[in-house]
C-alpha cells in the first residue's frame, strides 16, 4: 500500500511539470519495454508512460491490462475482442486482423488488405495482477489527458463512481490543467462524489453543498442513497447537517434537470419541425403550382438520402483522407439527383395529367412504389449506415446535463437557409415571379406569355430537389432505408393541408405548429398513459386538423379572392 | 306590373324582390362591392352593365350566396335576410343563378339535367325513392320546347354547342321555378342568331318572374328594352333607360376614357 502511494506520489509530482514533448524514440522504446520479460522493466515502463502523459499509451496499456497485447516477430500488436472481426476456419482455428500497438493502424499485407493471423502463433504479453494494479491509475490519469473531451469526461465520471480517495489528487491535478469548462466541471463533480464518503462529516457536508451548486446530476443516486431509509428503516447517513445538505442538493439538482429537460425537448421539437418544414416546402411548392399532390415526394427524400450514402461510399473508397468533405459534396448531389428525378416524372407523366389531380396522385403513387423497389434492388432492403463527418458529430454543451447535438443544430440552420433561398427565388427573381403568376392564375399567365409548361417542370424539379436536400440532412439524424419516405410523408401532407397554398409562411407555421402540438400532446398523454403517447398524439393532431379545417377549409394562409373553383 | 323605364325612382321596399343595403365586399382590402344599395322590383327585367371589375359578378355572387358581404344586408322579398343562409338554401328559396361559363352536367343527358333541376324535395331519401310522374315529364318537355332543345333531349350535355349549353342552363333554372333569375352574361360567345333567340327567351321568362341580367353586349341590352343599372368600382354609377345611360358623361368617361367624355358633352 505504501509502495503504491509512493508510486502515485511520484506520478503526481511528475505531473506538476508540463510534459516534455516525448521523442518518438523514447515513446516507442517505452512501449516496447512493456513486453519485457523483466517485471521491473515493465513497471518502469508503466511509470514512464504515466509521466509522459502521452495519450497514445492508452491503447497498449489497456490491451496489456485486458490481455490482448501480443508480440508478433518483435512487433507489438493488439488482438481485437469483437467476434465479428474474426474469421473462423473449418478446422476450428480462428484468424483475426491485428492492430499495431503503437500507431493503432491495422496490420496490412502487401496487397493492402488486413492480414489475418492465427492467434495461437503469437506470444501474449503477460501482466501479473500486481502489475495490472499499477496500470489502472496510470490509465485513469492518461484518460484524463486524452485529447478527446468526451473521453476525459467519462474518465472523470468513472473515477467518481469508483470513489477511490487516491483519485482525488489525480483529478485535482488534471483540473488545474483543464481548459474545457465542462470537463473541469465533470472532474469537480467526481472529486465531490469521492468526498461524499469521507469519514469527516464536515467534508461530506461541503461536498453535498458543492454538488448542489454545480448541479452534479451524476451524484444524485449517491445522494439519494445517503438519505433514503434502508429496509431496516434507518437512514445510512448519521449526521443531520449532512442529511439536510444532501436533501437541498438533490432538490437543487432536480429542479435544474427539469429545466434542462424542457430546453432539450424544445430543441428536439424545433429540430424535428425544421425537418418537417423542409420536406413540406417542396411539396407545397409543387402543390401550389400544379395542384398536384406528389405521392412520390417521400421517395424524393429517400433518393436524396441514398445519394448522400453513395457520396459517402465514394469518398471512403477513393478519398479516405478527405472523408469529412463528403457531406459538403453530398448536399448538391442529393439536390441534383432528386431534382432530375422530379423533372423526369413531370415531363413524362404529370404534364399529360394536367387538370386531373386525383389521377396524378395515383400515378405518382405508382412511381413511388417503383422507386422504393428500385432502391431495394440496387442497395438492398436493409437500412444502410451513414457516418456523420467529424464536424457534425458530438454536440454543443450549453448547460450542465444539456448537450445539443451538432447535426440537429446544423439541420435547423440549414432548413432556414433553404427557406431563405426559396423565398429569394420565389419573390426576388424573375422565374419566381412567373411561378407565382402561374399559381394565382394559370390561364392568364399563359396568355401573358409565361411558358407554363417550363414553369411546371422547373417547379416540380425544385420541389423534388429541396426534398432531396432534406433527405441528405435526414441521413445524419437516423437510419436510411427504402421506407424512409413513407415515415415522413404523411406528416408532410398534414403540414401542406394545414398551411394552405400560396404563402410560404403557411408551410412554416404549419410545420412548427404540427411539430409542437405533436410533442406537447405526446408529453401530456405520455405522462398519463406511457405507451400511448406518440400514437395518440398523432391521432389527436389529425382530429384537431379536421376540426380546424371546419373553420378554415383552405388552410391557414390560403390565398383569398377570385379563384377558379376547385 | 311594369313601370315606365325612363324614370329613375327609388322603389318602396315592399315592391322589391331583392334589395341590397349598403353592402360591401372586400377581398384582402380590395373592395369588389363598395357600400352598394341596390333594388330590383318584383316582376322587373333589369340589366346590369359596367366595365370589367365593376363588381357585376360579385353582385350576383352576393345575392346567390356564393359570397357573403363583409358589411350590409341582403333582403329577399322584403322578409328574408339572405346573409344567414347557405347557397343551396338560397336556391331553394327561389333564386336561380346562371354562371358566366356554362355549368351543366356534361356527362348527363339534356333530359337528365332538367330532371335534376326539377323543383321538389331535395333530400337524400326523397331522391333515392323518387319517381318521375306524368306531370313532371310534362314540365320537362315544356321546358325543352321553350329553350329549343327538344331534339337534343337524349344528347349528353357535353356534346352541345356553347349556345345550346347556355340555353340548357337557363332551362335548368326554369325547372326550379324561381322567383328571381340571375343571368350572368347569357349571350357570351353566341352567334347573332342565337343571341336573338336568347333575347326572346329572356323576355318570355321575364313575363312571370323577376330577372336580372348582367351583360356586355350593348346591342343585346338595348334589345331587351328595360331599365339599366351601371356599376363602377363596386357602386352604382347611373340608372335608367339605355338611352339615358348611354349618353351620361360619367358612363362614357368610365367606359371610354376622359377625352371621349369631353368630346361627347
Amino acid at each position, binding site marked *: 500500500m505504501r509502495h503504491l502511494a509512493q508510486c502515485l506520489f511520484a506520478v503526481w509530482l511528475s505531473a506538476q511539470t508540463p510534459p516534455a514533448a516525448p521523442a518518438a524514440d523514447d515513446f516507442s522504446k517505452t512501449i516496447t519495454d512493456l513486453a519485457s520479460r523483466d517485471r521491473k522493466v515493465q513497471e518502469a515502463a508503466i511509470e514512464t508512460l504515466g509521466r509522459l502523459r502521452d495519450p497514445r499509451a492508452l491503447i497498449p496499456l489497456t490491451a496489456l491490462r485486458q490481455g490482448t497485447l501480443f508480440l508478433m516477430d518483435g512487433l507489438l500488436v493488439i488482438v481485437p475482442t469483437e467476434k465479428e472481426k474474426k474469421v473462423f476456419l473449418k478446422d476450428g482455428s480462428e484468424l483475426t486482423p491485428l492492430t499495431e500497438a503503437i500507431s493503432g493502424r491495422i496490420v496490412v499485407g502487401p496487397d493492402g488488405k488486413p492480414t489475418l493471423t492465427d492467434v495461437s502463433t503469437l506470444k501474449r504479453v503477460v501482466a501479473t495482477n500486481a502489475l495490472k494494479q499499477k496500470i489502472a491509475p496510470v490509465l485513469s490519469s492518461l484518460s484524463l489527458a486524452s485529447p478527446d473531451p468526451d473521453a476525459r469526461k467519462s474518465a472523470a465520471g468513472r473515477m467518481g463512481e469508483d470513489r477511490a480517495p487516491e483519485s482525488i489528487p489525480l483529478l485535482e491535478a488534471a483540473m488545474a490543467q483543464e481548459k474545457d469548462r465542462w470537463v473541469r466541471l465533470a472532474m469537480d463533480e467526481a472529486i465531490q462524489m469521492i468526498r461524499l464518503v469521507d469519514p469527516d462529516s464536515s467534508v461530506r457536508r461541503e461536498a453535498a453543498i458543492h454538488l448542489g451548486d454545480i448541479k452534479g446530476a451524476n451524484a444524485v443516486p449517491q445522494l439519494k442513497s445517503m438519505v433514503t431509509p434502508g429496509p431496516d428503516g434507518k437512514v445510512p447517513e448519521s449526521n443531520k447537517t449532512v442529511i439536510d445538505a444532501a436533501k437541498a442538493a438533490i432538490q437543487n439538482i432536480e429542479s435544474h434537470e427539469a429545466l434542462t429537460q424542457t430546453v432539450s425537448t424544445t430543441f428536439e421539437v424545433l429540430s424535428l419541425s425544421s425537418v418537417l418544414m423542409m420536406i413540406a416546402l417542396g411539396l407545397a411548392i409543387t402543390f401550389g403550382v400544379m395542384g398536384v399532390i406528389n405521392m412520390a415526394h417521400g421517395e424524393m427524400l429517400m433518393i436524396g438520402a441514398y445519394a448522400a450514402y453513395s457520396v459517402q461510399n465514394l469518398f471512403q473508397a477513393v478519398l479516405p483522407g478527405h472523408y469529412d468533405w463528403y457531406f459538403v459534396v453530398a448536399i448538391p448531389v442529393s439536390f441534383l439527383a432528386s431534382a432530375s428525378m422530379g423533372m423526369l416524372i413531370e415531363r413524362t407523366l404529370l404534364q399529360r395529367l394536367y387538370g386531373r389531380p386525383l389521377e396524378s396522385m395515383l400515378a405518382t403513387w405508382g412511381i413511388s412504389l417503383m422507386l422504393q423497389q428500385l432502391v431495394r434492388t440496387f442497395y438492398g432492403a436493409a437500412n444502410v449506415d451513414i457516418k456523420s463527418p467529424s464536424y457534425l458529430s458530438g454536440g454543443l454543451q450549453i448547460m450542465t446535463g444539456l448537450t445539443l447535438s451538432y447535426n440537429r443544430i446544423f439541420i435547423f440552420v440549414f432548413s432556414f437557409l433553404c427557406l431563405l433561398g426559396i423565398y429569394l427565388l420565389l419573390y426576388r427573381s424573375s422565374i419566381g415571379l412567373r411561378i407565382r403568376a402561374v399559381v394565382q392564375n394559370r390561364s392568364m399567365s399563359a396568355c401573358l406569355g409565361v411558358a407554363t409548361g417550363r414553369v411546371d417542370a422547373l417547379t416540380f424539379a425544385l420541389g423534388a430537389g429541396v426534398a432531396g436536400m432534406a433527405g441528405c440532412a435526414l441521413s445524419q439524424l437516423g437510419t436510411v432505408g427504402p421506407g424512409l419516405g413513407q415515415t415522413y410523408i404523411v406528416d408532410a*401532407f398534414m403540414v401542406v393541408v394545414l398551411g394552405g397554398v400560396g404563402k410560404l409562411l403557411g408551410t412554416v407555421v404549419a410545420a412548427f405548429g404540427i411539430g409542437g402540438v405533436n410533442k406537447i400532446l405526446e408529453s401530456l398523454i405520455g405522462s398519463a398513459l406511457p405507451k400511448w403517447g406518440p400514437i395518440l398524439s398523432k391521432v389527436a393532431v389529425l382530429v384537431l386538423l379536421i376540426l380546424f379545417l371546419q373553420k378554415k377549409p383552405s388552410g391557414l394562409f390560403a390565398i383569398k379572392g377570385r379563384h377558379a373553383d376547385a | 306590373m311594369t313601370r315606365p323605364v325612363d324614370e329613375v325612382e327609388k322603389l318602396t321596399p315592399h315592391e322589391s324582390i331583392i334589395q341590397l343595403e349598403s353592402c360591401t365586399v372586400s377581398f384582402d382590402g380590395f373592395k369588389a362591392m363598395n357600400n352598394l344599395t341596390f333594388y330590383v322590383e318584383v316582376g322587373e327585367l333589369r340589366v346590369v352593365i359596367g366595365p370589367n371589375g365593376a363588381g357585376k359578378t360579385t353582385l350576383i355572387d352576393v345575392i346567390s350566396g356564393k359570397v357573403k358581404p363583409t358589411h350590409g344586408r341582403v333582403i329577399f322579398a322584403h322578409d328574408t335576410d339572405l346573409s344567414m343562409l347557405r347557397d343551396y338554401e338560397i336556391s331553394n328559396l327561389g333564386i336561380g343563378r346562371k354562371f358566366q361559363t356554362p355549368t351543366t352536367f356534361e356527362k*348527363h343527358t339534356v333530359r337528365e339535367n332538367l330532371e335534376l333541376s326539377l323543383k321538389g324535395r331535395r333530400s337524400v331519401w326523397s331522391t333515392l325513392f323518387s319517381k318521375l310522374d306524368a306531370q313532371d315529364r310534362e314540365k320537362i318537355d315544356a321546358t325543352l320546347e321553350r329553350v329549343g332543345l327538344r331534339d337534343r333531349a337524349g344528347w349528353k350535355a357535353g356534346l352541345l354547342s356553347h349556345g345550346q349549353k347556355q340555353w340548357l342552363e337557363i332551362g335548368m333554372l326554369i325547372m326550379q321555378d324561381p322567383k328571381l333569375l340571375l343571368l350572368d352574361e347569357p349571350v357570351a360567345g353566341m352567334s347573332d342568331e342565337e343571341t336573338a333567340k336568347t333575347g326572346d327567351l329572356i323576355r318570355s321568362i321575364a313575363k312571370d318572374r323577376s330577372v336580372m341580367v348582367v351583360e356586355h353586349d350593348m346591342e343585346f341590352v338595348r334589345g331587351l328594352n328595360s331599365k339599366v343599372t351601371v356599376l363602377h368600382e363596386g357602386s352604382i354609377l347611373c340608372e335608367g333607360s339605355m338611352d339615358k345611360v348611354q349618353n351620361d358623361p360619367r358612363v362614357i368617361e368610365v367606359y371610354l376614357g376622359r377625352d371621349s367624355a369631353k368630346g361627347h358633352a
Partner: protein
Amino acid sequence: MQTPDASMLPLWRRLHSPQQWAFIACLSVLVIAVVPLLNSAVKPSSWFYLSDFQVTLFGKYLTYAILALGMDLLWGYTGILSLGQGVFFALGGYCMGMYLMLHIGLEGQYHNELPDFMVFLNWPKLPWYWPPFRNFGFATVASVAVPTSFAALFGFLAFRSRIRGVYLSIITQALTYALMLLFFLNELGLGGNNGLTDYKTVAGYRLKEMSTMRGLYVLSGIVLLLSYVACRWITRSKLGRVLEAIRDGENRVRFSGYSPLGFKLFVFVVAAGIAGIAGALYVPQVGIINPSRLDPAESIEVAIWVAVGGRGTLVGAILGSLVVNGLKSWLTNKYPASWLYVLGSVFVGVVMLLPDGLVSLPRRLMAAWVRFAPRAPEEPRILEPVPAAKEKELGA
C-alpha cells in the same frame, strides 16, 4: 342512359335489361355454384379440379370485389377519392376476428379461455369491449355498425368543412395511417402487430373443414351479388344522378338547391358498411386480421382495382379487383421481386393509357378498328338530279 319513360318500368327492369339479367344469372351460377362443386364433386386428378387453396383464394377475391363496389360508389360515381377504405374493411374484419378469437376457447396454445396474446401479455381477464363479441349476431351486426358509425362521424366532420379533392384524399390517408399505428399497440387489446388469428370455428362450423370454407365462399358470392344489386339500385335512382352531378359539378349542384353534405355522407357511410361486410367475410377465409390491413398502401390499392376495371360502372370495380388480385397472386408466386414494379406500372399505365378502365376496351377497340381498318375503295357515285320533294326535305 335512361330512356324517357324509364320510371314507368318495374324496379328490376330499371336496373337491367332482361338480357343483362340473364347474363348476370349465368355468371352468378357459374361463380357461386359451379366453383365449389369443382372442389367437392370433382376428383383431384381431373383437369377441372379446384384445390382447397384455390377455393379459399377465390373467396378472398370475392370479398375484395365487395370492397371495390363500395369504392366505386364513392369514387367512380361521386368523385370522392377516399384513400382510407381499409379502415372500414379492417374494422369489420376485427369485429368478426374478435368473435372468432373468443370461440377458440381452450383449443389455443395456452389452453386458456383468454385469447393467446392476452395470456402472453399476462392480462388477468378480458377487457370490457370483448365479451359482447361472443355472440355471433352481435359480431355480425357490429361489423357493419362499427364502420358505419365511424364513417358517419368522420364523414360529417370532413364534408361539413367542405374539404374536397386532394385534401380529402390526404386526410383519409392520414386516418388509416394513424389507426394503423394505434392498432399496432399491444395496449389496445386487439392483438398488437400480430393481430387476431388461429381461429378454430365460425358459428359452430369448424374452419378446418373444407365444407365450411366452401360455405363461406358461397356466402361471399351471394353477398357480392346482393351488394351489386343494391349499388345498382342506388346508382340508377335519382340519388345516383345527384351523386354523379356532385362529381361533375358540385357548384351547379349547390345552386340547383341540393346540399351535397347529405349525399356525400350517405355514400360514404354506405361504402363503409359494404367495406365492413367485406372485411367480416374476409377474416374467416383468410384466417387472420392484423394492422397491416390498415397500411395506406392497401387502401390505395383498392383505388387502382376500380381504376383498372373502369370507374363508375360497378362491373368495372368487380372486374378490376379480380384482375389485379389475380395478377398479384400469380406474380408474387413466380416473380416476387417484380410485383412492385408491375403494380407501380399498372398505377401509371391505367391513369395514362386506359383512364376508363378495362370495361372501355371493347368500345375503344371498336373505335380503333373503325378508324384504321382497311376498306374497300369506294365505288364512284353517279350523280343524278335530285327530285324536288327530296331537295326540300334536305334543305329544311
